[in-house]
């Protein structure tokens, strides 16, 4: 964006970094047809995972991010599974998956506990009592080792898609 004012900076946070072991967690994992409890380990057992934290469904950063990830279709060219995390509930998230036309499953975490474990909590100004993840992306290998991490530093901020694509494992 080319704006004639400074975009709001987010404060420094102590988040999960490259080289760390990402915390495991279990939450309802929403697909286009149903949701069921699943753990992150269930997913990394199948191969590298790109864990994408977005704003709540409906906010434009989530919409733009999922549109971009849908269009890039990384799973076709790289050895990676794209998986989302949102505070939106499963009913809303199943709609998101249909509306965005994405094949990616999304963890529904209304209490934002996963973001807390990853150190990427964003307390929303003007929405008292509501926190969501700060937009962030973590590439995890089969041991949940973080190969790459990006965490938003501005509000809004979008994943550096080209930079991420450069570090994705080739199929």
């Amino acid at each position: 964006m080319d704006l004639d004012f400074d975009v709001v900076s987010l404060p420094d946070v102590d988040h999960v970094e490259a080289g760390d072991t990402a915390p495991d967690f279990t939450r309802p994992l929403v697909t286009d047809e149903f949701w069921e409890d699943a753990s992150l380990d269930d997913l990394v057992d199948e191969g590298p995972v790109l864990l994408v934290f977005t704003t709540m469904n409906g906010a434009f950063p989530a919409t733009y991010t999922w549109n971009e990830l849908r269009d890039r279709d990384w799973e076709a060219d790289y050895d990676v599974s794209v998986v989302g995390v949102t505070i939106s509930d499963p009913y809303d998230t199943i709609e998101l998956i249909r509306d965005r036309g994405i094949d990616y499953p999304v963890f529904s975490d209304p209490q934002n506990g996963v973001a807390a474990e990853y150190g990427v909590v964003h307390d929303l100004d003007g929405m008292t009592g509501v926190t969501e993840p700060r937009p962030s992306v973590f590439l995890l290998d089969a041991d949940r080792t973080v190969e790459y991490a990006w965490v938003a530093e501005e509000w809004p901020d979008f994943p550096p898609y080209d930079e991420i694509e450069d570090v994705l494992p080739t199929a």
Partner: protein
Amino acid sequence: MTDDPPITLYRLQACPFCERVVRVLESYDLDYRSRFVEPLHSRRNVIQRESGKRTAPAIVDESTGVTMSESANIVEYLHATYGDERAATDGGEPGGAA
């Protein structure tokens, strides 16, 4: 998934027929996974594919190869397959374990 439980229950949140099945599953300490579907029948293709119907609850029991809907049928099946009545129905009498 790691350690996939053999039983999958397709359920609807707050559906009394589904809770009835859950109660029986829990009474026999059966390991099962819950797949929640949406209230609209048109949104239940996954159940349609599994069971041939769009009604919840439905269960898939991979340990016996049984797929079933209708809570009364499911409860009867669970009692016959995993309950104390098992000995009485193992002989294969009509209406016993499917």
